[in-house]
């Protein structure tokens, strides 16, 4: 669908004094537990292979300890891998000299941090301009460009405040503006919204999606929150113990979880918000008169059917009928798998 921006190939990270020698042991089947017990080395990343498409939001998710923060820090080499390759636009990041790496970080990849990581002694506008200052942009241009991003993330009027005077959500907007101000094509977001409370988190997700509609950056977003992943991700990678368990679109993951770990992950999510009508349609057509575009999500489709007082409708793509959905199929699709609530349901 789109070209690959960042390609991660056979990436291993093993923490410990002799990590290099442990790679072959992991290749031959050593697990995180056995490596720890027998060799006192910690397996960080285990043969990670991901192709990240350009101008999309790639979510990498996993529980704490799954290696997601380690993985994102490999992309700009805040952490050096034990072995493997990282290609950005076909260029090997790991082969860069210190000078090349600094220029790469200054111009092509910027990062947003979980705990904001703002400079407490600098005002908002100076924080936003921080990346530009490092690049050596002169003061006037720096302020002009920073101001543009401050306005864009909705912080106009707070230019001369210090970070400690702002709420968490506002501080992270500063972090976001700082990362955007360098005009890097790739944006790394390390649990960027995890420290915020749920309402603010949704706000920030909307801001990010809004910006993305206009900017089309390649965003690599780390999270442990599946709802967040499903809400913003074009693609999702699920990590466990440093290994990729499953990758695919949100719908693919919800409809076809690779294993029990993923199944466990998705069991509590709102499936009606992830699945669209094309996912539950059957090859037939309906005469109810109601039509949905194929990308309409069930959450919107079901109330519309109830309102129109019909039990089935046509699914349309490019003006053609491509199938039919029934209310029953929809309800079936959004039921939680292996639900334990059946005891409370009685039939008369």
């Amino acid at each position, binding site marked *: 669908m789109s070209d690959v921006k960042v390609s991660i190939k056979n990436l291993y990270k093993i923490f410990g004094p002799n990590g290099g020698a442990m790679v072959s042991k992991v290749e031959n089947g050593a697990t995180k537990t056995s490596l720890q017990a027998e060799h006192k080395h910690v397996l960080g990343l285990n043969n990670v292979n991901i192709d990240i498409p350009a101008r999309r939001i790639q979510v990498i998710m996993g529980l704490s300890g799954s290696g997601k923060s380690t993985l994102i*820090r490999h992309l*700009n080499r*805040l952490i050096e891998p034990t072995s493997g390759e990282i290609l950005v636009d076909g260029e090997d990041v790991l082969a860069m000299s210190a000078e090349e*790496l*600094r*220029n*790469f*970080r*200054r*111009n092509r*990849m*910027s*990062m947003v*941090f*979980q*705990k904001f*990581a*703002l*400079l*407490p*002694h600098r005002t908002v506008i100076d924080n936003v301009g*921080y*990346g530009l*200052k*490092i*690049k050596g942009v002169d003061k006037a241009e720096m302020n002009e460009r920073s101001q543009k991003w401050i306005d864009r993330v909705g912080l106009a009027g707070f230019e001369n*405040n*210090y970070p*400690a*005077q*702002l*709420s968490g959500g506002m501080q992270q907007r500063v972090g976001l503006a*700082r990362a955007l101000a*360098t005009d890097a094509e790739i944006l*790394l977001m390390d649990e960027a919204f995890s420290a915020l409370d749920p309402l603010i988190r949704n706000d920030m997700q909307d801001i990010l999606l809004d910006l993305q509609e206009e900017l089309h950056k390649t965003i690599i977003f780390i999270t442990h929150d599946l709802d967040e992943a499903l809400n913003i991700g074009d693609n999702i990678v699920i990590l466990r113990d440093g290994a990729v368990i499953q990758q695919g679109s949100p719908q693919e993951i919800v409809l076809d979880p690779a294993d029990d770990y993923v199944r466990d992950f998705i069991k509590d999510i709102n499936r009606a918000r992830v699945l669209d009508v094309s996912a539950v349609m059957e090859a037939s057509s309906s005469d109810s008169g109601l039509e949905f575009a194929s990308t309409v999500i069930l959450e919107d489709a079901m109330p519309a059917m109830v309102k129109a007082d019909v039990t089935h409708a046509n699914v349309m793509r490019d003006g053609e009928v491509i199938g039919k959905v029934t209310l029953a199929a929809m309800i079936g699709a959004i039921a939680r798998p292996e639900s334990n609530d059946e005891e409370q349901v009685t039939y008369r």
Partner: protein
Amino acid sequence: MELFDDFPSMGRKDLVDLKKGIDFAFRDFSRDNGEAIEGFFDPLMYFMVWFEKLLMAAPWPIMILIFAILAWLGARSIGIVIGTIVSFLAIGYFGMWEDTMATVAIISVATFLCIGLGIPLGILMSRSNRVQATVTPVLDIMQTIPSFVYLIPVVMLLGIGKVPGLIAVCIYALPPIVRLTNLGIRLVDKEVLEAAESFGSNYRQKLFDVQIPLALPNIFAGVNQTIMMALAMVVIASMIGVKGLGVPVLRAVSNQYLALGLMNGLAIVALAVIFDRVSQEYGKRLQKHRQGGHGV
């Protein structure tokens, strides 16, 4: 059991020979190199003489005005400015003006010297665990060894006077600034450092944009401590020929002059309180941005 009654010590004669050997070796060293080392410190001595004369020769109202302005710039507090003025007026009224100026002169020079040496050394320590492991015990020795012990070699090398006095003060006053600079930089938030790194900072940018500014409250606590320790050394420094408030204190001790000792002692306290309050207030103002509150 003879072994348990008498400690198996080195023979008396051997011990005397060992001590003599060390003493003679150092004496020869200081005879051979004393002049060269003195020559090395000459510019520092000329500067100290000049600075002390300057403070003493300046008309007292101008000096009090300068102290008041400095106190205001540092503390931004009318109370502290008034306290400063009253203290210096009282000092002058009780006839201790010249000694006080001499003390202020050596304390200022010692403080600047310690900052100039201590902050770079602290930065070096924070960069490398090996340097830290080497320097820390040296700092421990500097802080705990009785001052008189290191006065012996210093006086043997340089005689008595301002420079050996300054060195003695600095040996005692240097450790806090080094320690707190090191600590302050090591305590800088790792994520902020990562952010600096992720935007492509080089070493110098990381140090001056992030590490030093974020460590500044700790570094400033070190400066404050260094000033206080330097003041504590005033009396000992006066034993090797440094002019100032220590001289009358020393005379009072040997002659049991209660009033003289008390008055000069209190003048040292007054200086300490002024320096402390002004530098602390200044340190607090440096951290003002850390306070919360929306729309301030």
